[in-house]
Every structure is written in structure tokens, then in C-alpha cells.
């Protein structure tokens, strides 16, 4: 097992409970582990939520953290993945001055080449949306920043694993 720190993506299937976010983030906070990104959403199973958390740590500590997460009563199952184990995406939104769209022809090319999308345009501003890997988003940010960005925001990572996560069969076993 590697003792080097690396990026792990944690997938946690949980009951939909108000306090659980607090409980899970406290596990990281208590051990002084910075959460790189965190996303919560519904999962493929009805009434089951899914957390996707990205952290940078050693695999040994990752395993211990997974144990602590699974120990929480309302956590159904937690998995951790390396970068190679998953398909992942993030998305981001830029708000920029509308004038740029006509004055700076290059912006149109950047949008096209980066597979970004113009969501809306009005008299004052336009909004660009882009989904992709972190590096692609960072590249787009660098390219657009020279023109002046009015607002920028980026989502946490969302990811699916290449291998099956046997969560549905587990949940069936819970039915009684």
C-alpha cells in the first residue's frame, strides 16, 4: 500500500438525513484532512443519497476514514477510488461582459475549442458553462481570465466508478 498522499474520490451511499453532512465532514475535520471537493445528490437508488468527496491522503489513512464513515448509523456503504478507477466530471460557469463577445473574436474560438457552451446572452453579460476534468476547466479559466471575468464558480467533482458498486444488492439484503 502506497504511503504517498494521492487523490481519492469517496462515494458514500446514505439515508437522506439532515445531520449526516455534519457527521461526515466532522470525520475529516477531526483528523485535519482538507476536503478538496464535496457534492451531494440523489443516487441511482430511490431515497438513497450519494456523497462524492475528493480528498488528498495516503491509502492507509483512506481505509481508516472509510471505516469511520461506514460506522455512522445512516451510512449504507462507502467506497474509495483512485483517479484510474473512475470517470469523473466537474462543471463551471463564467459570467462575462457581453461586449467582449463582439469585440474579442478569439473568445468565440476558445468557447468552441474547449467544448464550452453559451447558456445565455443579454445586453450586459453572457454566461458560459463548461463540464469536464479539473485541468480542462482550469485551462479555460486561464484563457478567459485575460478578458476579465465578472463571476466564476465551479462545482465539486461528480464521479461514477468503472467497477460495479454492489450497493443495490446490499440494500435488497436489508429488506426485512
Amino acid at each position: 500500500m502506497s504511503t504517498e498522499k494521492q487523490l481519492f474520490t469517496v462515494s458514500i451511499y446514505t439515508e437522506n438525513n439532515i445531520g449526516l453532512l455534519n457527521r461526515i465532514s466532522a470525520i475529516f475535520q477531526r483528523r485535519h484532512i482538507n476536503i478538496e471537493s464535496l457534492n451531494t445528490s440523489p443516487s441511482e437508488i430511490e431515497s438513497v443519497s450519494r456523497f462524492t468527496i475528493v480528498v488528498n491522503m495516503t491509502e492507509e489513512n483512506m481505509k481508516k476514514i472509510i471505516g469511520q464513515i461506514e460506522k455512522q448509523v445512516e451510512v449504507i456503504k462507502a467506497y474509495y477510488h483512485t483517479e484510474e478507477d473512475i470517470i469523473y466530471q466537474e462543471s463551471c460557469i463564467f459570467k462575462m461582459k457581453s461586449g467582449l463577445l463582439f469585440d474579442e473574436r478569439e473568445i468565440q474560438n476558445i468557447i468552441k475549442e474547449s467544448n464550452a457552451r453559451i447558456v445565455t446572452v443579454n445586453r450586459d453579460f453572457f454566461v458560459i458553462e463548461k463540464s469536464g476534468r479539473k485541468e480542462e476547466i482550469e485551462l479555460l479559466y486561464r484563457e478567459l481570465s485575460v478578458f476579465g471575468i465578472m463571476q466564476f464558480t465551479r462545482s465539486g467533482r461528480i464521479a461514477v466508478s468503472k467497477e460495479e458498486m454492489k450497493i443495490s444488492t446490499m440494500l435488497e439484503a436489508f429488506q426485512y
Partner: protein
Amino acid sequence: MDTKTIKKEAVNTQTTECISGSEAIVRCLLEEGVKVLYGYPGGAIMPVYDELYKFQDKIHHVLARHEQGATHAAQGYARISGEVGVAIATSGPGATNLITGIADAQIDSTPMVCITGQVASHLLGSDAFQETDIVGISTPVTKWNCQVTKASDIPEVMAKAFYIAKSGRPGPVLVDITKDAQFEEFDFKYKKCTGVRSYIPVPKTEMASVAAAAELINAAKKPMVVWGQGVILSKAEEAFKAVIEKAGIPSAWTIMGASAIPTSHPLNIGMVGMHGNYAPNVLTNQCDLLIAIGMRFDDRVTGKLDEYATQAKVIHFEIDPAEINKNVKADVAVLGDAKASLEAILPLLNKNTHPEWHQKFKDLYAIEFEKVIKDDLHPTKEGLTMGEVINQINIQSKGEAAIVSDVGQHQMIACRYAKFNQTKSNITSGGLGTMGFGLPAAIGAKMARPEREVVSISGDGGYQMTIQELGTIFQQKAAVKIVVLNNEFLGMVRQWQQLFFDKRYASTEMTNPDFVAIAKGYYLNARRVTKREELAEAVAEMMASKEAYFLEVCVEKEGNVFPMIPTGASVSDIRLE
């Protein structure tokens, strides 16, 4: 039940009871078999207290003098009986005062349900009077917690609370109930909780791991067991004894495991850890197989991890998968309930005796006896020792008493020297080290097991942290025997200052009040002992008392607890002086 209204439903003939949320809370407690609960009233919990008044012939509410005392009493109740302890408090400061006891119960795996009142739901988040986010505050120190804002949720949440608190690795649960939910009426129906789909209380025991463990035990030449509270919590005492007797394994205990088998059992080789016995600490680093049962390798047990039993193979019997490989890597992990696992492994074990290996423990015990134990228990120099007081209690109780200790030097001495014949007899704050735990915990223990002798042993520091619970003892007529070993110091901190801070006794010397006068102020029998000649007779008088009794023993001021593993040192570098 004179207040409930029974209404007939129009279509079917089934009767449901329409009752208030607050009555439902009390009815849930009765359904769970709760006979005693500890608490303190206040605005946001008053509707429940009104119901407790109505149900007082069925459930006994004990008024503590501080909510922290209520939690420790509930813990003492749980620890001696194995049942869930219950504490109740109002919102705001009432709720936050529970936190120390909850944290203590969490780290020592004590089943406890805490009920807190909360401001009405429309006031939540408005900084209302006595509003505090107790669910948020208690999250890191509870096994589970929940806020209820609708009366109809009360039965299910309460059932779940009790189930979670006592199942698997036990722990504290907090249920926060808004005042409007307490007033709201609904159709009450109770169903005990038998499972939560996201929660596996006891992991499956793999027979392959049991077989692998048996193979290691059968092959070992120098095996050693370290057991913890898991043996007690899973009621595995008999199965445990059968295993160690068959395989002839010397067995040591963590502070939380004490009393699971009698002190006098020939395979009981004493306590491990910072102030544990010499032989099991030293030989941890010589055994070829370390068998950990229901314990979690706390740092006070292991000392320096890099030099802890590195020569040995390790088997870890454990109910909580998160404990496996957390601190010490296990070669074989046997997940599951200790009792079931031990019963499963018993037929696979070969009979063994390991006489030479046992002799090593005896030899090291002889050294410890000469250097430490003799002078602790049978001192000849002036000044009473804590050890001789425990020795007198042993003589008088014949090992039948439950010893409830606080935290500090007296706790280490009590755990080292108290003799136990029965399980669940050593009640102390192990993981959190909560000064002030002892006195209120003794109240709970005595009330859960009134037929047992319960002796509370505290130092002069910790005693004063919850001294107000003398009022509870007086009001409840709880026949607790209270011993304060007074050295006019915060003794353990002073010992560290002496050893590691060049005797700079910063804020450890105590100017104490007249403890006997205070006890008498609460109308308790009380006595002070300053001379060795009086000790035996005074302890005998205390133990013979049918009522609560307070005994202050003025012990030597600067006595130290040895052996000792300094922080960061290896277990085998344990110091005898």
C-alpha cells in the same frame, strides 16, 4: 393512565390512543423497560416532566444537581447493569451540560439515551431563549442523534434510539424534541425497533478467520491475551474464561476490561498500560502471539506504537470493523460479537499450559511486588498511602463491592489493587478521563443494583467537580459509600510536574474545604481519617453502614503511582520508580 383519551375510529373497531407527544415520550420509556432516569427540569422539557409526575409510580425520575451528574449517573446505571441509562434535560444550558457525559459514554461504549427539550419548532434558528443547536453540538460525540419536530415521529425515533444505543458496539444517542412536538396530540402506537437498514450492529463472523486464529493460538509458544470491555459488553465472561483456561493463556486487561474475570483467577495477570502491571507490559514485547479481545489499542495501553509487540503476531477479536488496523495491524481479525466468536473458537483450540511462559510473569510480578506493591499496600513509613486504603476496602468487601472511581492517581491505584469477584464491578471513566465522573456514576450504579455494595473512590480534585451530587445521594437515600483520598493536590498532574516539569507545581496544590462538614451539611454520616491506626476500623464502620457514608482519608501529599510508562515510551520501558 387517567389522562389518555380513547377514540374509536369510524370505520374499523380498532382503538388507537390519542395522546400528547410528551406522554408518548414517557410511554416509549416504559415500553423500553426504563425504570429510572436522571435529569433536571427546565422550560423546554416541562411537558415531559408533567407526564413524569403522572407516571411516577411506574418510572422513577432522579433529580440530579447538575445535568452532567445526570449523565454520569445514567452511565453508572448502564455500566453495572448492562441496560440502557437514560438522562433528560431541558434545552440550551441543560442540553450542553450533558455533553461531557455523552462524550464519556461515546469513548467508553456505554449505552445511553439522552432526551433534551428544544424550543418550539417555529423558533428554531431565531436565537430564542435557551435555544442551542444541541444536535449539531453533540454530533461528534454521539453514536446517533436526531431532532424531532412532530409528535407523530416520537415513537419511531425513540424505538430507534434505544435500539442503536444498545446494539452492536453500544454508545450514547441523543433525541432532541421541540416543545410544540411535546404538546401536539397524535395516535400513539409503539413498535420496538429491530433493525435499521443502513446499520449493521454486529458484523458477520467469518469461520475462516476463527480457524486462522485457532491455528495461530495452537502454534504459539508464548501467547498473551489482552482483553477489554468488549468481553463485558457482549456478556462473554464465561466463554472467555473457557478459552483462556483451555489454551492456558496468561491474560491481562485494559482498565475498561477489569473485573470480567475474578482478580484471583490464576490466568489473570493484571492490567496493561501506562500504570498497569510490570509483567504484562514488559512481556507484551516478548510474546509471540498477542490476542486482543474487545479492546481498541488505546495509546494509554500501547505506549509507543512503533515499539509495541512488533515481534508478535496479532489476533484482534472485535465488533467494530473501524477498530481493525486502526492503531495496531492485525494478522488475523475476527469480526463479530466476542461471545459468539469465543464460543466458536473454543472447540478448535488445543489444551495447553505454557508453564515456562507463565513463570516469566510470576518472576516479573515478584520484582514489581518488591519495588512497588509492598510499599503501596503495606507501607511502613509515615503517611497513609492510597493503596492501603484500597487494601482495607478489599478486606472489608471481600472483593464483592463495585468500585466506582474518578480520574487520577486514586483511579490508577484503585484499578491496580481493587479485588473483584464479579463482573461489571469496575466502573470508571477510561477513555475520556472525566474528573467528576465517580460520585454521580456511583449513584446510578447503586440505584441499578441496590443489593450490591457500591464504593465511590475519588481524589480531592475530581470530587469537587461534582460534589453537588451529594444532594442527590441525600434526597434519594442512595446508600453509596464515598471515599475521598485527599492529598491536597491534583495528584496525577503534580506527579507529571515532578517527573517531567522539574517540580514546578503550577496550579496543582489545593486548599480544600472541610469535606466532613460538607458531607454532614447534606446530613450524611461522615468521618475523617488521618492516622494508620484508625484506617481499618474506619473502613469497617463505613462498610457496615446501611446508609450513605462519607470517609475522607488524608493520604501522603506527594505519593506517586508506579509502575509508569512515560508518554512516548515503549511498554517495555516501564519504570518501577
